[in-house]
């Protein structure tokens, strides 16, 4: 297989993990999109530096981390700087969970189907329409705290359901 084709394949397979990693380092969703675009550009520009015999994700996470560090001035202003130890744990965690990412994504579809009407409604407002807690509360005629709890329950329901599926496949 051609190098560019192989790199595109590897990137497509791992982009969810890199995106989540960037989000966990940066926090602000709208800027994560730009960082991700910069990461992919860097990865393709550095194709000659990549050793295809070595695992892709640690290299990609390294490129993503460097992209974040390049924007460090902004980063420091918002005090979103992790300590060395936290960053190490985080990077290793993302490398590990990447093995379960594909199953996670497939399980999500099944777990989503098991949600109650109320949870699906709140999910649609938060994730499909990208609304904040206050806006959801206004639309639903409930308190912001009730939305916060509703979102927490929704995420927990999905996480527990996915965890059960991962465990049934012998994964941690």
């Amino acid at each position, binding site marked *: 297989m*051609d*190098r*560019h*084709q192989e790199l*595109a394949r590897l*990137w*497509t397979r791992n*982009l*969810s993990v890199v*995106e*989540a990693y960037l*989000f*966990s380092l940066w*926090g*602000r*969703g709208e800027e*994560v*999109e730009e960082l*991700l*675009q910069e990461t*992919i*550009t860097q990865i*393709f520009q550095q194709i000659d530096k990549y050793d295809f015999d070595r695992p892709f994700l640690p290299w990609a996470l390294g490129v993503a981390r460097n992209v974040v560090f390049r924007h460090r001035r902004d980063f420091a202003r*918002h*005090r979103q700087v*992790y*300590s060395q*130890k*936290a960053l190490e*744990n*985080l990077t290793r*965690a*993302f490398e*590990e*969970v990447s093995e379960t*990412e594909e199953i*996670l*994504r497939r399980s*999500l*579809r*099944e777990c989503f*189907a098991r949600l*109650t*009407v109320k949870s*699906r409604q709140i*999910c*649609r407002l*938060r*994730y*499909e329409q*990208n609304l*904040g*807690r206050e806006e959801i509360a206004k639309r639903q005629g409930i308190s912001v705290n009730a939305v*916060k709890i509703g*979102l*927490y329950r929704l*995420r927990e329901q*999905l*996480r527990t359901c*996915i965890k059960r599926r991962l465990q049934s496949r012998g994964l941690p």
Partner: protein
Amino acid sequence: MNRWEDLLNDYMDGLHVPESHDELDRWLAEDPDHARQYAIRMLLHCELLRCRWSIESPRNEAIHQRTFWWSLFDLKKARYGVVTVIALTIFPLLAWFLWDQERFLAEAPPDVKQKEMEQIAVEKSRVSLQEIRVPAGRISQSVNVQWPLTEQRWSVGDILNEKDVIHLVSGRMEVQFNSGALMTLVGPAVLEIRSAYLVQLQSGIATTRAENLKSGLFRIMTPWTEVVDLGTEFGVRVDPKNEEADVVVFEGAVGLVPIDQSSEEFTPSRILQKGEAVRVSKHGRMERVVSIENSAYPIGDNILSPSLKRDAVITRVTDDRRDPSSPKYYRIYHAALDEDSRAYVDRTHEWNGITEEGIPYYLRGADYVAGFNDDKMNCPEVTIELSRPAMLYLLLDDRYPPPDWLTKSFEKLDEKIGLDQGPSNFHQSYQTGHGPGVSIDTIHSIWRRRVESPGTVTIGALPRATIELDGKTFKESTSWSMYGIVAQPLE
């Protein structure tokens, strides 16, 4: 909800504050398992954000159901239907109740009935997997579209889900993908949606703007090549009859990967830059596309452009360039020259009037060719194919000494046209302005030649110019600009 779950949920909802970040940091540093739990939650959150999970009822089925039930109340159409449905529904139930009413009432104690009803309510609140369709995008505009009788017809606002296939007979349709990519499809075309990031173009023309992707990279598969977006605007034309695909880059760059790499003819995959275009054969061989028509690849506001008021004057452009590693193309704009018209394919420079009066009236609405500004360093001989008698204009940078072939066959006019330069390697701080007389950087003189019959006209190469500074002669100036070519039909 404990403290760290509270922190994580605030983080996912964009409500984290700097003070809580230190707390989160300590928690992550404390135990690798904490980081793992955090990573799984972030993956889940991003997946929900990225895919925008939703539940869609099949549209046609819903319409069909609505039509059927409403038809029962249309007495003119279905007066017998109403009677039949009432009779079939009510009478058996009534008969059963009267026949076995004791058992009916005795078998369902209130608490059991309540539990059953609750169970049914819970089951009803769940949906089957078939009902969940992963949306990939939405149809945002359409112009004069026609659909085959046997295939699905799409409307503006319709959601496109993974595995949907668009069969467009004619017209133009715009799709806004959830990944952020914007695509215009020109019919006849067949497009299969694989996801918000991947489509298969089986035939037709698709122009894509993918510069602000929400994540990752956008890819278009064709039967003969895979086109990988690297932050760009590009066009793909698939011609199943001739078994070839054209790929044209308007901004940024794309990666090209031929599908059939077993053939002896195949060209290894390559990156195409702005201003480059290739034709890929079914065996993976890549050849330069020398010129393209701008209107063939509409995107953004251009999708609504009215059809041409007249036939094209410039139909083709070729040159004597021989370098196979440089697949540069000429972009032909029909009836389009106006203020702020893009001048070159490799720069964002624009043509403008040098004063507020604007560009000379006889150039307005003319056909013109956007070539390579970099050709000023190594100018080729260019041949223009004209479909009808025309006035041919050449716009030459005033700093260039006019070459002999120009003074012999063209006439110099008194009017001038300006070039408003965008950023380049030499002038990185330059920005284009808007409208005539604004931000004009270089002045071009206008030369004309009357061409009485259709055919080809060859424009000579520009000799390597020299300039003198402080008594010294320099071979060339890289700051000068390449000429422009314009044609207006003769009345």
